[in-house]
């Protein structure tokens, strides 16, 4: 035990880092998931109580593994039907620290099993790997703690029923499973980035957690370019966070942001990460989206934006992952590169696929205004405001409509 008691912030960081490693080691040893997550949580509570007074153990992870294993063994002893397993476990050597990034990523794979809905996978990942409490996750998603507890418990049952052996999936299955993992990590990031008032603090934490977990995934799978692509995308997007809302909490669109507020270190790291990913071969949608984010981040003034490059990247993205949202963004890029008429023509082509979605109307409003049709823009902004389910977007669109009201 070290002589120095841990300070509170340090302790939280340490526990958050150690928890998934300990959980992975315990799952590896006992070969199951549901109960063991509880045992590790209990061990974490013990640690939070004991370490500040008694000092931090030499090996925090080892301490957590030992305490969680002891609790589990007690539980298993109490369950006569599992006596056989106890005998087997007692004969095994104690778990070693293992390759830490691999273990954490293996846990993420378990938490992102394809049987789980996105909301369940997000909650389970944050709880089991992120080390967030059920109360914290519930607060971030503005639902009662009991509801979140049940959501997590059900997700654990699903995972237990799948009875997956612990470890990274075999290469054949890995590609598809990795897709699900990256999607969940990106959704966690977006939940954090789309901060709503009230839950803002908790949500900002979600973005940081998503970045942390994606970093770990990249360490474990350095040869998967899309993992690096996703990390780059997160860093390059998160870099703009300080400029994205004004002091009143209102959304500031990209072309009106104070770019001196952008996080230059995050942009640097994101750009480097992207370059490494792209050098790894196989270009995928996360790398392309990161490249688009990088093109925006490179421009120190909006008018310096290389829209021709962005338009080309959206063309590639649409080829890799066709979809109405990508097509919509390509229409914006076309308008910026070649004039509003080019964008409006693409929007018309898109027509029925997205009619009734607020973003189509918001984009059409923007392009009509650029083309000088203020009454048309006013009508489209109003329509977009009626259709959005997002409060900050609704405020923004209503303000745009009001600005053009005299023209209508």
């Amino acid at each position, binding site marked *: 035990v070290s002589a120095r008691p841990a300070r509170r912030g340090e302790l939280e960081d340490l526990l958050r880092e150690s928890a998934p490693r300990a959980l992975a080691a315990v799952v590896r040893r006992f070969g199951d998931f549901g109960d063991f997550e509880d045992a590790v949580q209990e061990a974490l509570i013990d640690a939070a109580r004991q370490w500040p007074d008694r000092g931090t153990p030499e090996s925090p992870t080892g301490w957590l593994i030992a305490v969680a294993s002891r609790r589990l063994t007690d539980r298993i002893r109490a369950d006569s039907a599992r006596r056989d397993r106890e005998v087997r476990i007692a004969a095994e050597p104690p778990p070693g620290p293992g390759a830490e990034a691999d273990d954490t990523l293996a846990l993420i794979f378990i938490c992102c099993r394809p049987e789980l*809905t*996105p*909301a*369940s996978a997000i*909650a389970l990942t944050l709880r089991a790997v992120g080390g967030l409490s059920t109360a914290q996750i519930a607060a971030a*998603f*503005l*639902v*009662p703690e*009991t*509801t*979140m507890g*049940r*959501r*997590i418990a*059900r997700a654990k049952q699903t995972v237990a029923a799948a009875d997956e052996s612990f470890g990274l999936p075999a290469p054949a299955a890995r590609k598809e499973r990795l897709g699900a993992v990256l999607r969940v990590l*990106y*959704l966690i990031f*977006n*939940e954090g980035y*789309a*901060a*709503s008032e009230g839950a803002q603090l908790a*949500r900002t934490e979600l973005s940081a957690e998503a970045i942390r977990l994606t970093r770990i995934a990249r360490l474990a799978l350095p040869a998967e370019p899309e993992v690096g692509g996703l990390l780059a995308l997160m860093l390059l997007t998160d870099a703009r966070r300080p400029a994205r809302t004004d002091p009143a909490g209102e959304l500031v669109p990209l072309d009106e942001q104070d770019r001196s507020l952008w996080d230059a270190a995050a942009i640097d790291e994101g750009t480097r990460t992207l370059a490494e990913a792209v050098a790894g071969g196989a270009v995928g949608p996360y790398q392309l989206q990161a490249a688009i984010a990088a093109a925006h981040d490179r421009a120190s003034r909006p008018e310096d934006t290389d829209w021709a490059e962005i338009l080309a990247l959206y063309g590639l993205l649409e080829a890799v992952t066709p*979809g109405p*949202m990508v097509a919509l*963004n390509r229409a914006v890029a076309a308008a910026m590169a070649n004039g509003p008429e080019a964008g409006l023509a693409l929007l018309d082509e898109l027509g029925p696929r997205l009619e009734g979605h607020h*973003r189509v109307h918001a984009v059409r409003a923007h392009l009509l205004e650029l083309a000088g049709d203020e009454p048309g823009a006013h009508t489209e902004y109003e329509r977009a405001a009626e259709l*959005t*389910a*997002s*409060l*900050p*977007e*609704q405020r923004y669109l209503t303000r745009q409509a009001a600005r053009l009201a005299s023209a209508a």
Partner: protein
Amino acid sequence: MKFLLLQHYGRVEGDVPPMSQWAPADVDAHIKFQLDLNAELMERGEFVEAQALTGPELAKNVIGNGADMVITDGPFAESKELLAGWRMVDVESEERAIEIAAQASVGPGPNGVPLRQQIEVRQLLGPIEPTE
């Protein structure tokens, strides 16, 4: 995504008397139905909140005039358009919210006959939806 499922007094099929005139066993069965549905939603990790409102007799409509309060209407003996209560759910899709609404619609009325109540489904304004 979160949805409010709104239940109004009058929006039921056929001629159903106010609950105050139901047999006690029918009232109990209806309340049990609502509580069971809440428990089921809780179990599925979808429940956010459910509230029943006091009856029309206590309802008032108010419009301020900037200086003092002006009660323009109410109490109401019976108003079919008045809200009786709501449920808030956090679900994966609008389809799932509609499925829950359909389930809530068929709570038992007098003699256990399903009410087929019309449920209004409204999405909450939330944070920005991630684009995929």
